[in-house]
């Protein structure tokens, strides 16, 4: 490699500048401040295991949407053989009654704005 003496320090400097915000967060101790979700009280498990739901709930919901609306196929059998109705407002929001303390915290942290709520009615939260 020609001019390694200039290129390598240049690359190191570039990486340092680009990753500066991350290092700053580490220095401030805010890097691991993941959003704290308020789980629905009285329920121990979701329709699938928590890591699966955390990673793929959006894909699951898209599937549910298409199968329920377009194919009138409304019964979901999860990996444990338990059956649930494919319904955002019925099944999901039946337990997750507080959108602000659950959905919004993560979505806000990730900077995503799903448009589910333009039409689907969020529960009032808290009560029940």
């Amino acid at each position, binding site marked *: *490699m020609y001019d*390694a003496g200039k290129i*390598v320090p240049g690359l190191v400097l570039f990486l340092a500048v680009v990753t500066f915000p991350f290092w700053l967060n580490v220095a401030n101790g805010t890097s691991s401040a993941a959003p704290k979700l308020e789980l629905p009280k009285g329920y121990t498990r979701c329709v*699938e295991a928590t890591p*699966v739901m955390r*990673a*793929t709930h959006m*894909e*699951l919901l898209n*599937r*549910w*949407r*298409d*199968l329920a*609306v*377009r*194919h*009138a*196929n*409304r*019964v*979901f*059998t999860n*990996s444990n053989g338990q*059956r649930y*109705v494919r319904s955002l*407002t*019925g099944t999901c929001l039946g337990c997750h009654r507080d959108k602000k303390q659950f959905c919004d915290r993560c979505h806000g942290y990730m900077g995503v704005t799903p*448009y589910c709520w*333009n*039409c*689907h*009615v969020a*529960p009032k939260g808290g009560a029940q």
Partner: protein
Amino acid sequence: MSLDRRGFFKLAGLIAAGTAGATALPAIDQGHQAGPEPVPSHALHGKRWAMVVDLAVCRQHPGCHACIDACNTAHNIPQIPDPRHEIKWIWEEPFDNAFPSKKTPFIKPELAAGPVLLLCNHCDNPPCVRVCPTQATWKREDGVVMMDWHRCIGCRYCMAACPYGSRSFNWVDPRPYITHINPDFPTRERGVVEKCDLCQERLAIGKPPLCVEACPYQALTFGDLADEHAPVRKLLDERISIRRKPSLGTEPQVYYLV
């Protein structure tokens, strides 16, 4: 530093492949299970759903809007004062407007008197379905002309195609015009077309359309035309029925008993 150009690209490729592999997610709910898909056993199944409206009963109860009110409340239908923006699923029109081809002088006065109940005809040959560019509307196997509001892009081709004015467009955000939002049913948003969906959400849990249930005088009858013992078939056998604009060939499936 002994890394040559070739080696650099190899290393970069390996790193990229490793990163992509680590972030791959498990696929869930592919919609097909080992056995046949379980269906709620209590859902109503039909081959050709249809609605029969007894205009004679409606005529006896002028001013009764039980069916319309029930539908509006359950389906979060906004009440927008500006008629250019109004949203209609089930509504009333004068006889001459509902049946323009039946307009004739000296018709039996009671026939032409009183408004006619209108809703989506759930046509057997629905022109709205033919023109939808995104397949946001389609005819289900049981005859319901269904809409997927998720997929509607608001082009309004379907509204131009529908000869019955059964489709409404949300020109404005409907939510401020809904007095009491029913949380169990979605609202719509600006830029989406909507219409009567024959209460497919109720058929799925074994209930007839809400307007049928809400009518205190049984003016509306819902049933499967493919079932020769269905009450709808009996009514059509015994009474004289008309349909809206049958000459257009859309095969409307709302029948009016005169």
